[in-house]
């Protein structure tokens, strides 16, 4: 148990120290690169909640990443145009937009979940994928918002008292949000609700026999997970000052799954490592060769075949039954 907390402590210590290290080593790209890790980690952790703990293989989660991003982009677009969006003048305050985007992700998640959870197995995988694709095509079809080319964003959303345009400040904002979200997810996973969700993964028949109805639990977890992924999309749009339809593509969901499995499924902390490793490898290997997937593909396969517990599991050792 303590080994786990040491590993987690080291991870967060490293993350906190990134900007000072960047200063010392004069690396202008480090903070920017690690910001991407943190943002994707937020999405991966959210998906791990239902994938790793609930065994819900949702290929549709990228839809929420896309929704988060486009809420920011579209509101920004209309404000730049100086017109109103359904009668609302808009806002550039993160305190307004970010919760709004999370709520919208949660609402869409509730609809998507309520419909998809009526199926299971491969049909569930497919119907969640279908929903993501539908959203993708809607986004591509929104020509006034850039369509296939995506939509640029002129300014980051504002947070009172903070200079979000400063990359270091923005990085810490993302890190704080990731930390808070990880703590929330850990609490959920160890709560009675979380135990029931994990029960559905291990033995649904027994769960039902004891009196736990599948839909309320799975749907609630799905919605919470959607909100978190939506927040990640918001942060990405702010970071990149850009939103594009492939934020919502099923392949994006696949990337998140790859991060989860590399880092360690069903651990909450694992996906953080997974995101860093996946994106870090992409960064390093693309500098060498454009065929970086030639290495990543087999790595992913090997992890799946031989070690479900991923890098985090390997670091922590022992059994993982938390």
């Amino acid at each position: 148990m303590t080994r786990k907390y040491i590993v987690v402590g080291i991870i967060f210590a490293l993350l906190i120290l990134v900007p000072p290290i960047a200063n010392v080593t004069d690396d202008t790209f480090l903070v920017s690169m690690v910001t991407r890790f943190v943002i994707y980690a937020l999405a991966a952790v959210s998906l791990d909640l239902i994938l790793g703990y609930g065994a819900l293989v949702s290929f549709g989660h990228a839809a929420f990443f896309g929704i988060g991003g486009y809420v920011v982009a579209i509101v920004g677009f209309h404000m730049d145009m100086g017109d109103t969006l359904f009668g609302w003048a808009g806002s550039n305050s993160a305190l307004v937009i970010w919760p709004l985007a999370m709520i919208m992700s949660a609402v869409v998640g509730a609809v998507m979940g309520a419909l998809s959870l009526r199926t299971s197995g491969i049909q569930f995988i497919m119907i969640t994928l279908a929903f993501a694709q539908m959203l993708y095509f809607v986004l591509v079809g929104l020509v006034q918002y850039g369509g296939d080319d995506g939509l640029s964003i002129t300014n980051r959303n504002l947070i009172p008292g903070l200079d979000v345009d400063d990359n270091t400040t923005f990085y810490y904002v993302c890190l704080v949000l990731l930390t808070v979200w990880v703590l929330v997810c850990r609490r959920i996973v160890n709560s009675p609700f979380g135990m029931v969700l994990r029960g559905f993964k291990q033995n649904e028949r027994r769960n039902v026999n004891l009196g736990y109805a599948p839909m309320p639990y799975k749907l609630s977890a799905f919605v919470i997970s959607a909100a978190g992924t939506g927040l990640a999309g918001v942060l990405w749009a702010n970071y990149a000052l850009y939103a594009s339809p492939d934020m919502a593509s099923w392949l994006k969901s696949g990337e998140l799954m790859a991060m989860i499995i590399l880092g360690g499924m069903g651990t909450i902390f694992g996906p953080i490592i997974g995101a860093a490793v996946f994106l870090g490898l992409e960064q390093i290997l693309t500098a060498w060769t454009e065929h970086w997937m030639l290495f990543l593909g087999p790595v992913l396969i090997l992890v799946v075949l031989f070690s479900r517990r991923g890098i985090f599991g390997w670091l922590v050792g022992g059994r993982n039954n938390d």
Partner: protein
Amino acid sequence: MTDKKPKLEIRNLRKSFGALAATDDVNLTVYADEIHALIGPNGAGKTTLISQISGEIMPDSGQILLDGKDITRVPPHQRAAVGLARSFQISQLYHDFTVEDNVAMAVQAGTSKRFSLWRNARKDESLRKPAREALAKVGLEHRANDLVSSLAHGEKRQLELAIALSLNAPVLLLDEPMAGLGAEESMLMKDILQGLKGQYAMLLVEHDMDIVFALADRVTVLVYGHPIFTGTPDEVRDHPDVRDAYLGNE
């Protein structure tokens, strides 16, 4: 059998799978403090009957009544709440949880805490204490913190029973609790069940006739989905039809 009205009553229950009548006009009662054994040859439909009473399978026709109330259409996840606890012939356990976790899941199901997103389930004494008590009842308290995957087969059957008991339901449907147990383990299980006598309305599916004669107040013999006789163990032993259909073929 002191109560006149049965706790659990099955009326004219039928279930067919294609041309096969798995449950063929079953009438059966279980009183609030009796152990009612359900015996019959393999394929007689005992587990199918239990699955209908627990709600996993929907009967084609007939009724299931609990305290006189019709629960035939109650969904499976609500049956524990109305008062039916069912254990499985093949243990259904949570393999990544500890022994105590498994029982605590049953304890938790009956409380309002089960939707709580915030408290730590493993540190909640109101859930863990009753779990440990149930484990003590079946003699597993020394294994409370071990993972299910480390249990021997007999211990898994004990755990299966502890889970059913923790639902605090007045009616217990036990599907071959001794399945796969050796002679010594079966005796232990028999002693545990004997200790529960009179506290539950228990429908016990069982193969071992010695156990049945030792524990049961009444016995129903099921053959090809239909009950051919119901009576005390002695009556069953002496009944010619039963001997021909079942005991004689042993």
